């Protein structure tokens, strides 16, 4: 079987960064080809070249035996290439149907046939097994649902080559399952599929072949992925050994520090209460839309509370807004990096220093530039943030590295008492994840409370001392680390009916603790 898609010696240089350095590999029809590599290794850049968004500085791209020089996304689409980019690209004010059919709305007598569009999308969504209202505006959907829209948009093109860039990073369990099924169907249909992810389980579950990148170079292609032990993959990717990724150690527990009492707000289904002890890592699990992010935003003062109180070390924390929470030592690392996290056009250093600088101002107003620079450099080094320098605009960093910068922003808080991480490792490579888990433990060891929200069940189980589960806007149960098995947690997370019927699981992926 000859390769349907070939990259030959492809290079791409950005100012100060060699994003791709002579990369060659090929992908065959009817296979899923995984791409792995650290954050900033160049994976997304490769897909952007494939999708016609970037022109390569050197090398050839061959699709179906023909050399291609795409000058726009339209060219790539015309050549039967569909790319689902890492940064979601949707139009918030348009409907699901319009987004899905963007660029190819059906017309009748020159007018858009809204009815046909709606029907077409409804039908395709049903075929794909995706539960979405075609008339809903994208702005009204959750991130996971928007991600599904993006996927549907690409699938709608009936392309021969379909490339996914970290599609599951904002999907939870249920949608991921849908996606996996789709990918398998596409493979069975003889399409050529490129699949990028940092989640080894899903790569093992989906990919036939895989290629590993590091620093813009191809390290190796494994023709049969299943044969390669994961230690080997990790070592190839990171360039070092990573043993126990979660690195869990037991810690002495302190008394209760954070107490959340009867917190309620628009998006919750009744008041929620819980508490966290000093030095404790509390995991929050739930399906998408379970209300975890909402609860944390209420705690943080980001949304208006209708009832309830937050006590830290026995003292009530003002609900006047995030600034009050931060002043009290509570910080939140939000789940939506692009919309709520980064200041896209500001530098890496600025993004790190924005909050903590208030503690080291000169005369309460003036910045200490040297100190800020040093702090930024320090975090760039410690978190291995891949950037040419601290002055680089953060939007030019790879997705995973942006996430690290936001983490650094909060780790830089000198008087941290409560660290809330909402999906902290979304899009982060294995090596860096390991690093983040170590940080979580260290912060806890200093006596802080750490709350980790994650839709990645193994992750919750791996880092937390205790797990709270949410379902449909309320806390549905609590499990100690010892009791928190995957089935136990899922039982609490799934709606009652579904739980009774079939506890769908991650079981299909190798249980994640095997990473240890």
């Amino acid at each position, binding site marked *: 079987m000859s390769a349907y898609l070939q990259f030959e010696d492809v290079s791409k240089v950005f100012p100060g960064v060699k994003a791709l350095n002579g990369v060659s590999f090929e992908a065959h029809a009817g296979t899923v080809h995984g791409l792995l590599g650290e954050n900033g290794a160049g994976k997304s850049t490769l897909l952007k070249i494939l999708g016609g968004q970037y022109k390569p500085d050197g090398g050839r791209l061959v699709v179906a035996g023909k050399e291609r020089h795409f000058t726009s*996304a339209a060219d790539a689409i015309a050549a039967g290439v569909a790319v689902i980019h890492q940064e979601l690209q949707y*139009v918030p004010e348009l409907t699901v149907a319009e987004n899905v059919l963007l660029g190819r709305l059906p017309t009748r007598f020159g007018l858009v046939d*809204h009815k046909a569009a709606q029907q077409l999308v409804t039908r395709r969504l049903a075929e794909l097994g995706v539960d*979405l209202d075609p008339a809903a505006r994208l702005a*009204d959907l959750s991130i996971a649902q928007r991600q599904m829209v993006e996927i549907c948009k690409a699938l709608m093109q009936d392309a021969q080559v379909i490339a996914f860039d970290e599609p599951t990073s904002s999907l939870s369990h249920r949608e991921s399952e849908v996606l996996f099924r789709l990918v398998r169907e596409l493979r069975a249909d003889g399409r050529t599929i490129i699949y990028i992810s940092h989640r080894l389980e899903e790569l093992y579950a989906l990919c036939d072949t895989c290629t590993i990148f590091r620093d813009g170079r191809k390290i190796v292609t494994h023709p049969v992925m299943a044969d390669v032990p994961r230690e080997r993959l990790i070592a190839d990717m990171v360039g070092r050994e990573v043993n126990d990724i979660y690195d869990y150690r037991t810690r002495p527990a302190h008394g209760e520090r954070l107490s959340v009492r009867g917190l309620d707000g628009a998006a919750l289904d009744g008041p929620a209460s819980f508490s966290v002890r000093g030095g404790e890592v509390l995991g929050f699990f739930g399906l998408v*839309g379970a209300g975890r992010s909402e609860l944390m935003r209420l705690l943080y003062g*980001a949304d208006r509370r209708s009832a309830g109180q937050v006590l830290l070390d026995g003292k009530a924390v003002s609900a006047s807004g995030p600034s009050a929470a931060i002043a009290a030592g509570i910080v939140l690392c939000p789940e939506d990096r692009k919309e709520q996290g980064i200041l896209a056009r500001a530098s890496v250093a600025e993004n790190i220093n924005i909050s903590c600088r208030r503690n080291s101002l000169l005369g309460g107003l003036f910045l200490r530039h040297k100190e800020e620079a040093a702090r930024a450099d320090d975090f760039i080094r410690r978190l291995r943030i891949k950037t040419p320098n601290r002055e680089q605009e953060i939007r030019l960093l790879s997705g995973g590295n942006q996430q690290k910068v936001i983490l650094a922003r909060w780790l830089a808080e000198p008087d941290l008492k409560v660290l809330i991480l909402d999906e902290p490792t979304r899009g982060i490579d294995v090596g860096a994840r390991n690093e983040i888990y170590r940080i979580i433990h260290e912060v806890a060891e200093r006596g802080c409370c750490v709350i980790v929200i994650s839709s990645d069940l193994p992750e919750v189980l791996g880092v937390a001392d205790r797990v709270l589960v949410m379902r449909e806007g309320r806390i549905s149960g609590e499990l100690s680390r010892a009791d928190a098995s995957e089935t136990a947690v899922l039982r609490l997370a799934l709606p009652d009916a579904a739980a009774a019927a079939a506890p769908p699981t991650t079981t299909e992926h190798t249980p994640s603790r095997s990473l240890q």
Partner: protein
Amino acid sequence: MNSLSSNPSAAPEAPASAPAATAQRKHAWLADYSMPLLYIALFTVLALTVENFFSAGNVVGLMLSVAQIGMVACTMMLCLASRDFDLSVGSTIAFSGVLGAMLLERTGSVTVAVIGGLAAGALIGAGNGVLIAYLRINALIATLATMLMVRGLAFIASQGQAVGIANDAFISFGDARVFGLPLPVIVVAVCFLVFGVLLNHTVFGRNTLAVGGNPEAARLAGVKVERLRVWIFLLQGLVTAMAGLILASRITSGQPNAAQGFELDVISACVLGGVSLQGGKARIIGVLVGVLIMGTVENVMNLMNVDAFYQYLVRGLILLAAVLLDQLKTRGAGGHRD
């Protein structure tokens, strides 16, 4: 320019429960129609309280007074929806009027005058489009520059003098009545219809919104963003030139001084009608109401003999009241987070 749709996760999940969905629909409906309802309420109150307001003569006069603004607001809406901006419309009105009058004077042919005026407008618009889409010049600066240059051309061409129009066929454009309505009013009504359909029921309109909502997404989906932009500006120029010709026919001369500050009126009417300066959001009915509110306020103030100096105050207050009312309604309707 405040943070309009900056909060994506703010809104409810789609498969919301049935009653919630109905409530949401209802709210959406309210949000959609709060402006027209508001205007109807305003109109009724005025009809009952202000003498002479609700007379055929006055209502037609009111519509005539917003005819030019209304036409141009239709295309300005597209322009703003695609996240652009056009300051050159006032100058284009003046220039096309002057040019049309001059061509009429020279050739005596209405066709030549109309085609010449329209072509000039389309050219100016396309020029704006090329500057903005292909040369990537900031829309504010680009159209400010054309605004200056086109005004200059209007002065130069006419030597600063009004160009008289004597041709009756041409004058009747602005004068003629169909079903009792002056032609300009009919033209503006047709414009609202055509551009409403264009916005909501054509690929062109939907792509315009997409480009404004997220240009990158549109480009990645294969929309030819640059070409679309040029078309939008070209249309804008064309319609503006038409407004300029109609104005010239109404005042039986092409005046190089005409329509100064017009651009701000048009943009304000659009924004008042809910078009977002951040792009991606536009509603033709909103624009219509925005235009009508602006015209009605002026009309009523003059009917009520409000002192010229106090008119400034009243106009400002009404603007604030209109958006605030609209604001409250939408806020009540659907909790947004921030």
